[in-house]
Structure formats: structure tokens, C-alpha cells
């Protein structure tokens, strides 16, 4: 599974993306965040403002409770500020 980070999440984790295989019990986007937080202090810092983080599963907006089972790509980013 490809995990992507954008904007300040990318700065905290120190990477734009990583390929990971989460444990089988990590079935939702929210559980994935819990799992990622333990990877490094940078990951923990990236997800500190957890309520403001947006999630996309396979390039579609998703909620923390949505399933990531079978997903190819999960992205985490701040609220968008384009236009």
C-alpha cells in the first residue's frame, strides 16, 4: 500500500510517500493513523492535529472510519487551500 503525505504532514514525516504493508487488523483509515504514529516521532508529529487532517483513499475523500482493505493508495493532508 502506498501512503502519501502532503504539505506540513510531508515536512513532519520527512517523506512524500512510503510503501508499507500494515498489519491485517489495520482495517480503517483511522486505524492506519494509529499504526503510522508509532513509526517515528516525525509521524507522531504529522498526526498531532488529528482532527484537522483530511484523508483520501484511492484518490477519493474518505473518513477515518472508512475501510482501507484492498486500497492501493491512502493519502493524508491538511485542509486544501488552492484556487
Amino acid at each position, binding site marked *: 500500500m502506498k501512503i*502519501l503525505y*502532503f*504539505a*506540513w504532514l510531508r515536512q513532519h514525516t520527512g517523506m512524500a510517500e512510503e510503501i508499507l504493508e500494515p498489519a491485517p487488523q489495520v482495517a480503517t483509515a483511522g486505524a492506519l493513523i494509529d499504526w503510522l504514529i508509532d513509526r517515528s516521532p516525525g509521524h507522531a508529529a504529522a498526526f498531532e492535529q488529528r482532527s484537522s487532517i483530511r484523508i*483520501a483513499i484511492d*484518490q*477519493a*475523500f474518505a473518513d477515518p472510519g472508512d475501510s482501507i482493505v484492498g486500497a492501493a493508495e491512502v*493519502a493524508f*493532508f*491538511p*485542509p*486544501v*487551500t*488552492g*484556487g
Partner: protein
Amino acid sequence: MTVRVQAESFDLGAETDRLTAGRRDVGAVASFVGIARETNPDEGAEPVIAMTLEHYPGMTERMLAAAEADARTRWPLLDCLIVHRYGRFLPGDPIVLVVTLSSHRQAAFDACAFLMDYLKTQAPFWKHEETASGARWVAARATDDAAAARWTKKD
């Protein structure tokens, strides 16, 4: 598909000419150009020296295409174009272009505003501003959410 995500600049006149060329059914063209500005709306904030727009390649194109598809179900559009740039911009540089074509003005005006409100809140772009004392990520604005929400209200 009339959605483009690109580093290069754009020319409103050239794009409009291309969209209207050979057509006799277009009665209205509405357009919006978003431009990088020096002034920051936050009180007491420093002038912006430059701004970098980061985006999510792939998802950006999907969300802009979804915006266009949504607009086409709401208004009788003859054509429309969305161009959004990424990269580093100086004050005065054009960032985003929306052009809508219809037989009558109201559909063109409304669809243009709708598309801008939609992409402001749904397209995965992030602004990073440079000022004399450092750089910061621009925070999302509640006013943008409110502007987008008006299109989902029931009549």
C-alpha cells in the same frame, strides 16, 4: 476533458478564442482568473514575497473533472475550461483560470462561481507562503467552506 493542471502560465484571451472558435450558439462567456497577491488578509500580516502551490497529482485532475461534471448537470453549459497551475509564484502571477460558455449569461456566471467554490474546498492544493520572516502553510478559510456550502442548499 477540459481540465488542465500545469506549471505553465495561461492566456485568457487565447483560451477564450479557442473555446468560441467556429461556434454560433455561444451567447455568454464568463471567466475567473485567480492571481497570487502580495497582501495577506490576516491583520498585521507581512507582505507575501512568493507562494508555492503543492498538489496531489492524479487526485487533482479527478476532483477538477468531478467539478466540471457536476457543473454540467446543474447548468446548460456549452463548454467549460479549468486550468490550475502548481509551482512557485510571485505576486501578480496568474494561478487559476475558469471559463464557462453558455447561451445565456446567468448560467455562465453561476457555473463559473460554482466551479471556483468547488475547487477551493475540494481540489487537493496547498499554498505555502514566503515572507521576510519565514514561510508558512496557508490555513483553510471557513468563508470558503461557506461559499461552497451555498450550492448544496435545497431550493
